[in-house]
């Protein structure tokens, strides 16, 4: 059960900064998840028209001037807000932190589509005369932009970059933070994922063309993983960045510790552009469990990835049934049912939403599960109402993405 690493190699979460469609910090987010409060609303976007989406309402000007806000990107803003909130939450003496020893690792599903669509839209007003193309386009669309804006905002001179990992990106950012701390590349990692995806029409149009965009008269009921009446993904924006430190450093400064990252894994399906592969997903989960020296029945809560697509939810359930079987202990929930699919932020947000269960000993539910799909049957699926538990020691967080990218992170209470 005990991780084989010395304390200087054990990595813990000491801060959380987030914006979700139903909360702008962990306390608000958790309250919404326990109250069954959705963050999905009606939304209208250029060319596509009316749809539903998870929209964030964080205060952009809390950590940015209006001038800098204008210069940067929405993804950068989300990142800056989350990073500042995480640093504050971690109780760090930020003035005296060595900024050259801080690493920024931000998972993104994609970056640059918002800015490119916007530029093309404006260029159309000038009959596509390229002399009206903005000189801001390149710094806004380079792939490191969201991480780079955090570096500029906080004066961090250690490494910064993004990790393009489709919808596995939130976990990928966390995993990168763990690895860089273990390698000694940084003393403190700011890591997780962000997404500004609702500001492109393309993502809605593409999911729609794929027959995978959710629709429902009541926006709050549109995101319904595992339900027989699910009809696709609700696109959401959001962000969640964690402060990760070595256990020895966290203890020496008396930091509040949310939990230890005791296992992780990433692998590839090598199977299809969009269709998931349950065998590879199961292998990814098993690898993470093996590294954590845990068996499936040691996991208290599995935070599922399911997005509400017809096929994807079934495939993940096949993987989960293969690994967890009917062990009579493990519970399963789904955070996308509340906020939609926050893409690059999804994995990090969904882990964050579950972290307070170590203290409040409640497993939040999967909402909108009115007619459970028999093909998605999971013994232990927490439907519609949160469930109280004697204790919660371990959370396993799934996050999968297009092109067959799988990621799993396991966190244990200390």
């Amino acid at each position, binding site marked *: 059960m005990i991780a084989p690493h010395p304390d200087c190699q054990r990595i813990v979460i000491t801060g959380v900064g987030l914006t979700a469609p139903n909360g702008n910090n962990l306390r608000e987010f958790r309250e919404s998840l326990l109250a069954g409060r959705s963050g999905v609303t009606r939304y209208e976007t250029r060319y596509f028209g009316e749809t539903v989406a998870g929209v964030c309402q964080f205060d952009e000007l809390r950590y940015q*001037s*209006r*001038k800098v806000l*204008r*210069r940067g990107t929405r993804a950068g803003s989300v990142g800056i807000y989350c990073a500042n909130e995480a640093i504050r939450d971690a109780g760090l003496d930020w003035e005296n932190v060595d900024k050259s020893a801080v690493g920024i690792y931000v998972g993104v599903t994609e970056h640059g589509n918002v800015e490119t669509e916007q530029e093309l839209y404006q260029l159309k007003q*000038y009959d596509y005369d390229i*002399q*009206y193309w*903005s*000189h*801001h386009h390149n*710094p806004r669309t380079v792939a490191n932009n969201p991480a780079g804006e955090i570096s500029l905002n906080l004066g961090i001179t250690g490494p910064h970059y993004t990790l393009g990992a489709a919808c596995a990106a939130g976990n990928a950012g966390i995993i990168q933070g763990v690895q860089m701390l273990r390698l000694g590349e940084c003393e403190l990692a700011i890591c997780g994922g962000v997404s500004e995806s609702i500001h492109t029409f393309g993502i809605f149009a593409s999911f729609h063309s794929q027959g995978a965009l959710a629709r429902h008269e009541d926006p709050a009921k549109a995101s319904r993983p595992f339900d027989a009446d699910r009809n696709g993904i609700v696109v959401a924006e959001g962000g969640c960045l964690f402060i990760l430190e070595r256990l020895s450093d966290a203890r020496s400064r008396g930091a509040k510790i949310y939990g230890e990252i005791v296992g992780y894994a990433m692998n590839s399906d090598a199977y299809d552009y969009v269709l998931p592969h349950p065998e590879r997903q199961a292998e990814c989960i098993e690898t993470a469990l093996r590294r954590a020296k845990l068996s499936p029945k040691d996991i208290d809560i599995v935070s599922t990835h399911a997005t509400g697509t017809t096929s994807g939810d079934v495939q993940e359930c096949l993987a989960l049934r293969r690994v967890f079987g009917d062990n009579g202990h493990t519970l399963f929930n789904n955070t996308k049912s509340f906020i939609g699919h926050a893409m690059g932020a999804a994995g990090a947000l969904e882990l964050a939403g579950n972290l307070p269960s170590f203290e409040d000993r409640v497993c939040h539910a999967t909402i909108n599960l009115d007619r459970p799909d028999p093909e998605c049957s999971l013994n232990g699926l927490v439907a519609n109402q949160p469930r109280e538990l004697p204790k919660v020691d371990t959370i396993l967080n799934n996050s999968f993405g297009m092109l067959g990218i799988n990621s799993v992170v396991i966190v244990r209470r200390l």
Partner: protein
Amino acid sequence: MTSAEIQKAILDILASIAPDEDLSKLDPQKPFRDQMELDSMDFLDIVMELRKRYRVQIPEEDYPALASMNSSVEYLLPRMKDIPAA
């Protein structure tokens, strides 16, 4: 446009580029960059906004003429005199 209208047009552009700045005390004789936070990318925004809003083309070699309010108005007046104020 008159000199006063061009001055207002420039102030409007500066306000959109640097919304946190108090432009009421801008000295028209002094360079903008001595009085406000304005880097090279911001300066290019002035050129771009003049192009977008008034279709005024400013070749790169003339950029120094846009250093201060007075030099900008002097440079732009012959180029914008036939443009109606917005």
